[in-house]
């Protein structure tokens, strides 16, 4: 949330302290008191001072959070009475942002004693971080915005954060989509585009629908008025129009033929409709699924770690089906059934307007009730989706953890825990059916009542007034009965509409998501990679406030083997994730062969950096295909060679189908060590310039590790290798080692050099591991 100017009121107030608007270098709003109450306030920075202005909130004040503020062009009037506190910048040390559970605290040491400067909600956290960097820059005697580039500067433009139509702030400034202005109609139009591809099929579909509708409209007329009033009544005058005067039997025969013919045509159109629908529907579902899946694959790792797999699966699998239902079944039917209703009423009106009026007298009521009931459907569809998501997440969770569940004998408890979301889904489903039934009952009721009225009043007309003939009455009854289908349809269509648009909305959310890691336009290609890596001042954290890596400077020469040591959680894996650009650095830069990884083409980068990590990914398919992952053209010879180097050849040859053995869904036929060796083989085959081994031999036995170590010795030749390991013996051959602790490089040197530093972390660790080895050797 951006709010980087002091109000006029405050500017006037701080004039007392001889501070003018031009002195203000940086501003951040604050909104909490140390006692945990909302307040109004700002902190600001000048060359000499850090100022804090606070005020109680006026009564009736509404607190706005990200995405809710409606932008007003002229500045909001600020009448609050502020209290101003100034801190001498020279006395401030260790200014620090501390993120707590529900609030953020800015603290520092002032004159040597720790103090709280300000507290605020997460709303302004990003801005506070920037503010702190400004403060540090000033303290270090730099320009206040030194080293602050790109994204942060862009965001200064406040106008871009608000929707130009309704003036509401975008919930996600990167996406610039205003949820309030993206209404259901826009989504509808977007889905429609998917169908344009099948214009021809859809045109035929409509045609056949229209034909079917026409026949169904003519039908009551033929069987009612024509049959009874003209043919059976021997209406010569009418028959003469067709040149059939007096030939009643022939007329009857022709009428019968026409009736049979209509029925046949109806059947044919039905068949055509079904065939076309099946084709268009499946193709569109297919298109949408492909789009969603490719959008998902493009997204950065962050997206997947923040969402449950089960929920994502629901989206890809069932949502895309749900979208098309309305479009394939619904839209043409709206058109056809709508037409049928209108034509029916017109015909009825022409036949006898009084009775037509009676037939449709309940329609306004119907429209009214429909409008009233409809919003409920929208909510229920959303609710059903969430229930469905919960069920599939639970199932997914449980199936992957089946081993633990069984080991702890928790089957019963798990079943019980599954019952809850499952019951919720049932409830949600029942609620939808209930509401749907309300619609159906309403619509049938209207239709039934109308039909009874027609009978009563019609019979009255026929008997008493002699105004209409029996045939007309029968035609009328036929028409009213004929409305049954369309009415029934309209009772369903609203449900279809809300379900479809609801699902479409969720799919577009994914399609519209912007990957955090994007390739630059005109990226630089690595022609002849050397494999030199340089990290300068790299700072990174998965969340805004907690930095996992702090100010890392590291240079790895071409062909060097660098070992990385450190406690678990020290930031080792994060460091290598940054080099293969699974995440982008927050500050600083990473260069490969002197080119910033952000400027490199992603495919080049990934091709030249291969990673063997602690979590191995073995997909469904043969062993050979798994080894050749990302390298489809590999020959059998190359695959075997790679497997041999990885120490995998032996166990693969022992499997009954050798390299053609198909590994099960989650690689359940392989042990952890075997999987790891396959992924090592994969990396060997990929032949990268930079090889990253992240605990690559953690789950293999000592003997195999030795074997792999030997082959790795061959493998690392001519490559830059970064190797993370807990067992220091694994890193014996490294040219250089670094020790990372708490996100910083604390020690650096060769094995021998580090071991000499008796106070160091490395020495301690080495000692400890030797000792435990000695114990086990006894």
């Amino acid at each position: 949330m951006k709010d980087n100017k002091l109000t006029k009121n405050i500017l006037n107030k701080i004039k007392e302290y001889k501070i003018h608007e031009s002195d203000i270098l940086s501003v951040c709003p604050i909104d909490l008191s140390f006692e945990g109450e909302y307040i109004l306030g700002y902190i600001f920075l000048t060359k000499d001072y850090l100022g804090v202005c606070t005020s109680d909130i006026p009564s009736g004040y509404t607190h706005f959070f990200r995405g809710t503020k409606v932008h007003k062009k002229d500045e909001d009037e600020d009448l609050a009475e502020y209290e101003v506190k100034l801190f001498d910048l020279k006395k401030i040390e260790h200014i620090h942002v501390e993120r707590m559970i529900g609030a953020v605290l800015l603290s520092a040491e002032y004159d040597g004693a720790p103090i709280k400067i300000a507290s605020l909600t997460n709303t302004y956290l990003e801005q506070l971080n920037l503010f702190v960097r400004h403060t540090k820059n000033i303290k270090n005697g730099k320009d206040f915005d030194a080293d602050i580039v790109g994204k942060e500067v862009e965001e200064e433009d406040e106008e871009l954060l608000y929707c130009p139509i309704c003036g509401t702030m975008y919930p996600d400034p990167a996406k610039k989509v205003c949820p309030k202005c993206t209404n259901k109609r826009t989504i509808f139009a977007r889905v429609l585009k998917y169908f344009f591809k099948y214009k021809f099929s859809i045109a035929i579909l409509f045609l056949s629908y229209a034909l079917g509708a026409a026949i169904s409209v003519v039908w009551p007329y033929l069987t009612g008025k024509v049959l009874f009033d003209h043919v059976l009544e021997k209406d010569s005058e009418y028959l003469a129009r067709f040149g059939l005067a007096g030939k009643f039997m022939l007329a009857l025969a022709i009428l019968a033929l026409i009736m049979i013919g209509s029925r046949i045509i109806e059947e044919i159109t039905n068949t055509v409709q079904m065939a076309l629908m099946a084709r268009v529907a499946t193709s569109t579902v297919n298109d949408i699924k492909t789009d969603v899946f490719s959008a998902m694959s493009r997204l950065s790792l962050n997206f997947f770690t923040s969402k449950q797999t089960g929920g994502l699966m629901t989206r890809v699998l069932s949502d895309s089906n749900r979208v098309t239902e309305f479009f394939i079944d619904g839209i043409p039917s709206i058109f056809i059934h709508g037409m049928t209703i209108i034509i029916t009423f017109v015909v009825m009106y022409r036949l006898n307007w009084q009775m037509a009026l009676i037939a449709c007298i309940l329609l306004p009521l119907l429209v009214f009730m429909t409008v009233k009931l409809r919003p409920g459907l929208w909510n229920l569809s959303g609710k059903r989706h969430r229930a469905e998501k919960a069920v599939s997440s639970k199932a997914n969770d449980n199936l992957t953890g089946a081993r633990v569940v069984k080991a702890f004998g928790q089957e019963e408890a798990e079943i019980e825990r599954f019952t809850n979301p499952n019951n919720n889904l049932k409830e949600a489903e029942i609620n939808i059916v209930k509401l749907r039934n309300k619609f159906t009952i309403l619509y049938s009721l209207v239709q039934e009542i109308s039909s009874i009225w027609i009978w009563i009043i019609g019979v009255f007309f026929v008997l008493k007034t002699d105004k209409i003939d029996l045939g007309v009455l029968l035609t009328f009854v036929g028409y009213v009965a004929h409305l049954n289908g369309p009415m029934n349809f309209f009772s369903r269509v609203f449900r279809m509409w809300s379900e479809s648009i609801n699902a479409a909305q969720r799919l577009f959310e994914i399609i519209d998501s912007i990957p955090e890691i994007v390739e630059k336009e005109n990226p630089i290609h690595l022609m002849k990679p050397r494999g030199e890596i340089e990290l300068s001042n790299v700072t990174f954290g998965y969340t805004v406030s907690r930095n996992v890596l702090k100010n890392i400077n590291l240079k790895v020469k071409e062909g060097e083997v660098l070992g990385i040591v450190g406690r678990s959680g020290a930031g080792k894996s994060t460091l290598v994730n940054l080099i293969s650009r699974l995440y982008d650095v927050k500050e600083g830069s990473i260069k490969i062969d002197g080119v910033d990884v952000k400027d490199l083409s992603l495919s080049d980068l990934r091709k030249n950096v291969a990673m063997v990590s602690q979590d191995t990914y073995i997909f469904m398919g043969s062993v050979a295909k798994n080894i050749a992952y990302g390298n489809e053209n590999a020959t059998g010879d190359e695959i075997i060679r790679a497997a041999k180097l990885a120490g995998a050849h032996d166990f693969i040859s022992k499997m009954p189908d050798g390299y053609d053995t198909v590994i099960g869904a989650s690689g359940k036929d392989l042990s952890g060590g075997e999987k790891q060796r396959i992924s090592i083989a994969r990396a060997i085959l990929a032949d990268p310039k930079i090889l990253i081994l992240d605990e690559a031999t953690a789950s293999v036995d000592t003997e195999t590790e030795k074997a792999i170590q030997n082959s790795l010795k061959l493998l690392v030749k001519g490559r830059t290798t970064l190797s993370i390991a807990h067992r220091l013996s694994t890193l014996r051959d490294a040219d250089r080692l670094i020790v990372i602790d708490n996100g910083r490089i604390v020690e650096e040197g060769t094995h021998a050099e580090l071991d000499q530093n008796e106070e160091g972390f490395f020495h301690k660790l080495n000692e400890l591991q030797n000792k435990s080895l000695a114990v086990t050797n006894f």
Partner: protein
Amino acid sequence: MAEINTYEKEAEEMTRMTVITDKDKFERTNGGFVNLTKDGILFERVKVVRLFPFTDADKYISIRENSAKAKEIGIIEDLGALDENTQEILREQLRLNYFTPVIEKIYNIKDEYGYAYFHVLTDKGECKFAINMASNAVTKLSDSRLIIMDLDENRFEIRDVNALTQKERRKLDLFL
């Protein structure tokens, strides 16, 4: 060998559970922080962390060092059993640490294209916030207790859904 022993001592420290009792002294500092003196050792501006923030907010409070590692000094088993003054000192820290307005009244909830807009009255004042429907913004602690997280992960709590009016519940229906 001496070094190995320090290492082992560290390991032992890591696994030991220390209880903080009435004998240990908490003090408020001028800057608004808390110091703890335990067994004659002064720990400056300690961190106060709830171990069961939802199910039992006043039991099992972890007191940790103010360092990057945030090593645990000890655990308070029951905050309510400490003397009033100490309780107030610690509660002050907890109030800000776990700042979570409680929603008392729901004016409106509007679901728009992947986001839901809330307009509510909390014990801290009137608030308007938005949540992302796609992420797990609403956590159900029990059948009737909800934690709602806005786009910046600011927390709001609904203590008891059943205490809301029928009309408010219907607005919230989407998340129940």
